């Protein structure tokens, strides 16, 4: 599964959230083939090359185009919460699609 983590400027929150997402997904048994973090402006263009995007809740609507193309866009409130990411991943269809 290809994972992108994006925040306003790509140097603080997204980096922290990337570590959390990596841990959360590995614990759930996902195989991550590629994980990156970047700014929203960069992410808007590159999101289509990923299977899932994690981003602070306020930025979810920036990824409408990617979402239309089938990229799962998941808004996260707490960039350090493994639990929150796991709960939201479990609410999505990611396990169905990527954990075969």
């Amino acid at each position, binding site marked *: 599964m290809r994972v992108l983590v994006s925040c306003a400027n790509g140097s603080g*929150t997204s*980096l922290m959230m990337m570590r959390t997402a990596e841990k959360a997904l590995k614990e759930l048994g996902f195989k991550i083939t590629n994980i990156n973090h970047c700014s929203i402006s960069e992410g808007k263009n590159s999101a289509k090359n990923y299977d899932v995007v994690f981003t602070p809740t306020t930025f979810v609507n920036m990824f409408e185009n990617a979402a239309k193309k089938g990229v799962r866009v998941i808004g996260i409130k707490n960039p350090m919460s493994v639990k929150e990411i796991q709960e939201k991943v479990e609410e999505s269809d990611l396990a169905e699609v990527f954990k075969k």
Partner: protein
Amino acid sequence: MLRYFHDNGLVKIEERVPENWEEAIRFSAEVLKDKSLITDEYVNQVVNDVKEYGPYIVIIPGVAMPHSSAENQGVLGTGIGFTIMPETVSFEENNPEKDAKLFFMLAAKDSEQHMQNIANLSELLMQDGMVEDLMQIKTLEDFESVMNKHNM
């Protein structure tokens, strides 16, 4: 990580009560400015980002991580400055989840070192009881005792 702040002179127990979140960010920048890791140009960008995007820099209730693009001209070096405000600062009206008292300002010139700093900061904040203990700090002696208690 607490030792890192302590040994590098990157911790400050702020005595002035900031009037609003913007002033709090400016106070929290002083530690990094004193060490010539950032300039006001960067601080202004951090403030503008919050105005534009909202208080997403409050990463968990009580904890703010002010930062902006690493490419900003005002970023001169790499480090995290830790400032403890005398009172909780509100970022969003009627939303106590976005209040903050602990400010960790980021400067990220060297991306590898920054990656390590962020990893250390995550670990610090995930430590059981850490945020609660940091909230109680009023003096440098308090800080040292929290540092020794958690051995971090």
